[in-house]
């Protein structure tokens, strides 16, 4: 990555972290469109608890501490970083898939 692109990447990452840690604090707690429709049309009761609902990070850190601001901030930071790493991994894998398709003669492994 050249210097300009690296600067763009770092600024972008900073913006993402600010969104996850700070902007997310101002999120509306009202149900989103699908949940709202499920309530209005009476099928919200068919929704089951998430398999991981007892996990501390469930509902974006709801069960971490008694401080909901801190919980959201931790969940936002952690989620943004985990998604960055997972995304990098998936796109690295996509590139590797191409490399393998282009060089069918290449032998892999020892």
């Amino acid at each position, binding site marked *: 990555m050249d210097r300009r692109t690296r600067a763009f*990447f770092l600024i972008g990452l900073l913006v993402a*972290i600010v*969104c996850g840690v700070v902007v997310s604090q101002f999120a509306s707690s009202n149900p*989103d469109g699908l949940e709202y429709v499920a309530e209005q049309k*009476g099928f919200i009761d068919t929704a089951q608890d998430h398999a991981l609902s007892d996990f501390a990070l469930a509902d974006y850190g709801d069960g971490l501490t008694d401080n909901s601001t801190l919980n959201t901030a931790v969940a936002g930071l952690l989620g943004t*970083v985990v998604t960055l790493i*997972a*995304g990098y991994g998936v*796109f690295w894998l996509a590139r590797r898939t*191409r490399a393998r398709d282009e060089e069918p003669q290449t032998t892999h492994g020892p």
Partner: protein
Amino acid sequence: MHIPDGVINGPTSAGFGVIAAGGVGVALRRTGAYLSERQVPLAGLVAAFVFAAQMFNFPVISGMSGHLIGGLLAAVLVGPWAAVLVLSVVLAVQGLFFADGGLSALGLNIVNMGVIAPLGGYAVYRLLVGILPRSTRVVPLAAGLAAFASVVLAATGFVIEFAIGGTADVSTGAVLTAMLGAHVLIGIGEALLTALIVSAVMASRPDLVYGATAAPVATAVEVT
């Protein structure tokens, strides 16, 4: 728009899980064919940004909020097939770490927000760029309008899944009307946020915007 477990029955959820896996498989190959090495970290960044942005639920009407899906946004920034991967990663992290979106419903959610929204939205984007005047200034406008369409399409995806395997005894017509009514409004938020973010990237690094530089869009937009 994350579907929890239980709303759509097991066989339907599993069937859409297979469709989602197929979509991700195709996306891996198609993305690998055009993604350059320097774009790998940037595509990861788009995923991180979409995750963070989805945490912000904006108020829509009394008692209802909406959040960015980011499928069309990702498609314009890194291409429609890479966007399928971006949203799949975001949805997997949300489901596995934050209990957002049921695990059995992951395939349903990937199909709606990770396949229909970016691919359907990008088709609309290409159509709009072909119709609108030739200028890079149309990129944020076309992105905003296509983002609106992507939300309505994703909402329709849910209604189709509900019609096939909804566990509640509620008429599909009633769900369709309610879902479209809600998501036409949420789509306006998606359109504004997408146009704003695309404008910001176009102002600083238009060369990194797939939707402004890739064929056949580049021939319709004068990239300077």
